[in-house]
């Protein structure tokens, strides 16, 4: 056995140029797949994060009818017992009062969503990461408005100015109120800046006369428990509507699945190309060495060992290439760092549900699959050419070779 290994290594070294080329081909493709894969995974994470942090949460508890008719008409009463949310799977939850609204300045009018938040509980939405100029919302009683930079620019307004907000109240009544803008936020994407106007939860409740929330966002420790927790909550509070982020955002959820699937397609394509390339290279290599193998068999080496020698050569090259390829891929990812800057295409990629940076994300499982599958394919790819050698008779091998 040791002898076979030694022979294999020597043979690899003997055919430096040919094996080097095979190695190089595998390194490049492994490295490429590694980088592509982590970028695709990064995109997938992006989709997920955007969907969750966009005031959705993994699970959302909504007042009935709220999905059909968003607004203040339907709400979750403030005295609803939410103690059932104290579960180990649930990391945090936050109530909000949201309403579509029209916001007006001296010069412009825009449609936004006004949201009353409890800032102490907003630890998992985009609100946490906002860069605020002026005053943030720090208390549920805060009466001022926090709007996005791009909305402020569109409305031609600024810090300290008053904006008029129009909404439809719980009884279909028109609510019209002036708010002072004391904070302007910048966020990673302009879609938050355009879409939301934030204020304190209690103060918005007081203004609108809604004694409750329109929804409660629930954030989980582990994404995988989503449907399980959703089912439990739904059975515990049948009077409210408990939905998962996938139900709320089918587009993103489909994209998320699609990318997950694409990663595997990518791996299959890679392995397919690799395996044909390998077989091609190995068949040639083996055919060239027919006489050599014949000679080995003449001196008494068992056919099994001859095959094993070829297979071991191939696996060694494969493992080496995997290691170098992964290292090269890591290097590229390290070089990409925070991500590829897509700011130039920001509007386009945002419409698609992505951020302006395309950041790689490593998923260990994918690489275990990639590694194991490559080695198995290496075994298969080398076994058949080697079989050809031992099928021929020794004499013929010696004569033809």
């Amino acid at each position: 056995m040791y002898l076979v290994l030694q022979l294999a290594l020597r043979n690899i070294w003997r055919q430096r140029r040919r094996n080097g080329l095979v190695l190089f081909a595998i390194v490049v493709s492994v490295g490429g797949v590694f980088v592509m894969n982590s970028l695709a995974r990064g995109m997938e994470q992006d989709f997920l994060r955007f969907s969750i942090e966009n005031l959705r949460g993994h699970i959302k508890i909504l007042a009935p009818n709220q999905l059909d008719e968003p607004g203040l008409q339907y709400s979750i009463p403030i005295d609803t017992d939410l103690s059932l949310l104290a579960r180990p799977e649930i990391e945090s939850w936050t109530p909000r009062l949201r309403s579509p609204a029209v916001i007006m300045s001296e010069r412009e009018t825009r449609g936004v969503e006004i949201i009353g938040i409890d800032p102490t509980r907003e630890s998992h939405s985009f609100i946490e990461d906002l860069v605020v100029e002026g005053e943030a919302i720090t208390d549920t009683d805060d009466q001022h408005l926090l709007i996005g930079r791009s909305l402020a620019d569109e409305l031609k307004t600024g810090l300290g100015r008053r904006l008029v907000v129009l909404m439809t109240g719980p009884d279909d009544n028109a609510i019209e109120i002036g708010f002072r803008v004391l904070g302007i936020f910048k966020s990673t994407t302009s879609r938050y800046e355009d879409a939301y106007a934030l204020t304190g939860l209690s103060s918005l409740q007081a203004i609108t006369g809604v004694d409750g929330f329109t929804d409660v966002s629930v954030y989980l420790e582990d994404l995988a428990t989503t449907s399980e927790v959703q089912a439990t909550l739904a059975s515990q509070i049948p009077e409210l509507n408990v939905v998962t982020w996938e139900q709320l955002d089918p587009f993103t959820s489909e994209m998320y699945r699609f990318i997950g699937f694409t990663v595997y397609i990518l791996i299959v394509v890679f392995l397919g190309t690799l395996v044909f390339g390998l077989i091609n290279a190995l068949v040639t290599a083996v055919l060239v060495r027919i006489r050599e193998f014949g000679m080995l068999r003449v001196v008494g080496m068992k056919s099994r060992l001859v095959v094993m020698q070829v297979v071991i050569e191939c696996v060694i090259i494969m493992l080496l290439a995997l290691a170098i390829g992964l290292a090269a891929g890591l290097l590229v990812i390290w070089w990409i760092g925070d991500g590829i800057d897509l700011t130039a295409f920001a509007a386009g990629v945002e419409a698609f549900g992505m951020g302006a940076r395309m950041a790689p994300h490593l998923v260990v499982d994918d690489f275990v699959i990639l590694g194991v599958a490559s080695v198995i394919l290496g075994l298969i790819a080398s076994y058949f050419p080697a079989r050809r050698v031992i099928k021929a008779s020794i004499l013929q091998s010696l004569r033809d070779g």
Partner: protein
Amino acid sequence: MLDSPSSPECQLTHRFISAVCAACLICLTGAGATSEITAEDLIARMIDQSRGLSSYSELSMTVNRPQWQRTSSFNVLTRGREDALIRFTAPAKDAGNATLKVGDTMWTYSPKIRRAVRLPKSMMSQEWAGSDFSYNDLARSDKLLAYYRHDIVDQTEEDGLITYTIESVPNENAPVVWGKERIVFRSDNVLLEQTFFDQAMQPVKAMHAFEIQELGGRMLAKRMRMSDLERPDRWTEVEYETIEFDVAIDDRSFTQFALRGE
């Protein structure tokens, strides 16, 4: 013409009665207190002018833009301050377009689509019929009394008429986008000027009255011009051709049937 509060004869009696009342009040409260007119009183008077009054008028409107100018004609039927029906009569392209206001609610009607559309509140700050007037300017409700603090900042007297300049600043949470409004109001109940300031106190748009004269038995500005102060060359002028007060009004004049011209 029936007596309206500001027809000349009536005004005399009105003033006389006010004077008597004031005198009584001074007597009652003892001495010293002069009957100072407050800005709130003036605003209330301005708003109350048309209360309970019906009118029918024909007007022409000129919209001026840097590239073009357009004149159209319309007639207006009003009942109090609450209800109004405006219908365009010319040019042919716009004839039949109508706006109905009942209380705080407005509808528009276009004969081309044969539909009456109720205007959402959110549209009220948009311009009306392509002019510099917003729907809000047309609807002009009690907002001035409810949400502003008023101060008389200037007062001049000419030919026995006092011209008050009032500055109206909205309250903290008022649903008002303006930083302040400046209203110039004459003691014979004619609104001479109204200027809207943004919150940096820069004037944004202003309405001026011209050719103040007796029309239909009341002192009125024959022409009113709303100008966009930030973009000169953009203004809209409305001119009364005829106006008649206290006309008989059918109850169905302010319905959606009437809006459609049926």
